[in-house]
């Protein structure tokens, strides 16, 4: 059966060139880079090279890169590391409400420990409001963390402008601006000097590199308290034996991205636009989630009314198409995704969310296949949907979705057809 992988924000396929670069470091060059004999020195050399490749990709200095095991670790390190480092100067942190859980959950703990967190709202397209950020800044604000683009709905924030605001208001001289750029680094050019951020997270596994390697860029002069303590690795900021094969792969993935990303991104964007333009021609009552102009080139997120997202992606899977959903039924906690909730998407509509995220390996044929199969799946599920038959019979919409009080449910009109 044809296989079309469209969940690339979850994980990308490893580039064969990356894999080839990694192979010698499993069985031939297995020395610990901290050992000074020749086998160790060989590992040290490739560790240094990878650090340069990774730094070059975001226009940073190699000394400003801390290798970690995954983006979750990088995000934990910046949040907890800055909180601990600056707690005597302030205990106020600002983030957007649509951050990844590896930002939001560490903050829950900090909140219990006495830190105050301001959660910036987003508009219906997922944009952070610059004025709200400005008004939230305080003398005791130690950290602002706002993602570069959103994994689920693809909205790209104007980080440069948001950093400008924070730096020009100058509430204090220690405030740190961090951006989680995991969703962007696979498909957008990222330049830390241009963005003027103090810290940035990105990960190998969504940019055609292996799992097990990620980075935290920390601008020279910014001090954080290490969260994993032990030996002297990563300048004692993150101890633990370096995962050399994964780091070598990450370096190679960054080198490849630097040279071919702009060409790939153009192609991916064309495929994305085909899906965004063609699906509404084939499916009625379908709504794009997220921004249109400032949207990640790899993200397509639609809500399909009258059907549920898990049912959609299971039937897609049966046709070899792999996608994701933000519906409550697709989430282990049975809640509509926090991103759609923050964007004020109606719960009944949000239940029908389907997310396609593209990569450089997707083709026109892949997209044509989705355009052919997906509308049939929607029809099949709508044929068995009581919400759809009620709508066809009465022209009215029944309430449904997480949190609905079915005992007292009534018709409601929640769609603004813009």
């Amino acid at each position: 059966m044809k296989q079309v992988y469209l969940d690339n924000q979850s994980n990308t396929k490893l580039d064969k060139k990356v894999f080839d670069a990694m192979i010698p470091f499993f069985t031939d060059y297995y020395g610990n880079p901290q050992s000074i004999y020749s086998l160790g020195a060989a590992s040290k050399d490739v560790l240094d090279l990878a650090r340069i490749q990774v730094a070059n990709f975001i226009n940073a200095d190699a000394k400003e890169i801390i290798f970690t095991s995954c983006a979750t670790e990088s995000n934990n390190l910046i949040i907890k590391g800055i909180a601990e480092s600056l707690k005597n100067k302030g205990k106020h942190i600002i983030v957007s409400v649509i951050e990844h859980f590896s930002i939001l959950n560490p903050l829950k703990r900090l909140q219990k420990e006495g830190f105050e967190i301001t959660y910036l709202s987003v508009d219906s397209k997922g944009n952070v409001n610059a004025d709200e950020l400005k008004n939230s800044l305080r003398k005791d604000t130690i950290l602002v963390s706002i993602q570069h683009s959103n994994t689920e709905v693809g909205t790209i924030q104007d980080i440069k402008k948001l950093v400008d605001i924070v730096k020009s208001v100058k509430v204090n001289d220690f405030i740190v601006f961090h951006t989680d750029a995991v969703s962007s680094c696979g498909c957008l050019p990222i330049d830390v000097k241009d963005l003027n951020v103090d810290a940035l997270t990105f990960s190998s596994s969504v940019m055609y590199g292996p799992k097990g390697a990620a980075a935290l860029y920390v601008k020279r002069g910014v001090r954080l308290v290490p969260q994993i303590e032990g030996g002297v690795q990563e300048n004692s900021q993150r101890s633990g034996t370096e995962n050399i094969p994964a780091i070598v792969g990450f370096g190679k993935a960054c080198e490849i991205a630097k040279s071919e990303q702009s060409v790939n991104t153009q192609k991916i964007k064309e495929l994305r636009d085909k899906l965004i333009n063609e699906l509404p021609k084939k499916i009625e009552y379908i709504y794009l989630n997220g921004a249109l102009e400032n949207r990640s080139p790899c993200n397509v997120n639609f809500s399909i009314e009258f059907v549920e997202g898990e049912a959609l992606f299971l039937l897609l899977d049966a046709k070899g198409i792999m996608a994701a959903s933000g519906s409550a039924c697709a989430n282990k906690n049975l809640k509509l995704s926090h991103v759609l909730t923050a964007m004020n998407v109606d719960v009944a509509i949000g239940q029908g969310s389907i997310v396609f995220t593209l990569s450089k390996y997707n083709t026109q044929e892949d997209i044509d296949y989705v355009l052919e199969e997906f509308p049939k799946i929607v029809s099949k599920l709508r044929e068995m949907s009581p919400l759809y038959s009620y709508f066809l019979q009465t022209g009215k919409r029944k309430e449904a979705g997480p949190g609905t009080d079915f005992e007292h449910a009534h018709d409601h009109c929640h769609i603004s057809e813009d």
Partner: protein
Amino acid sequence: MAFYSGKVMDHFANPRNVGQIENADGIGEVGNPVCGDMMTFYIKVKDNKIDDVKFKTFGCGAAIAVSSMVSEMAKGKTIEEVMNMTNEDVAKELGGLPPNKMHCSNLGADALHKAIENYKSKQGK
């Protein structure tokens, strides 16, 4: 191991008894306020037995599979037998459900029971 059993996937991908019954003897509609799934069951009763049953469901794979299985289990059974049918029976027939999907099985039998209550209330009139 796959998230859902083969039996669940079969009932989900090829659901039995989808549809509506015109002039049904009983209609039952229930929704789950947590996840927001909704089911409507339609029944025809003849000689105290479920002569025909159809359903429509808005929900995930488990919710659709449960509806399909409930409809199949109910057909030909007496009103009393169907009223004694539990959510556990349905989940068991499906070869089990993932723990966070067990709540979906509650909806199926409930909707069917509600259709029978609706039928009974009409009879009482």
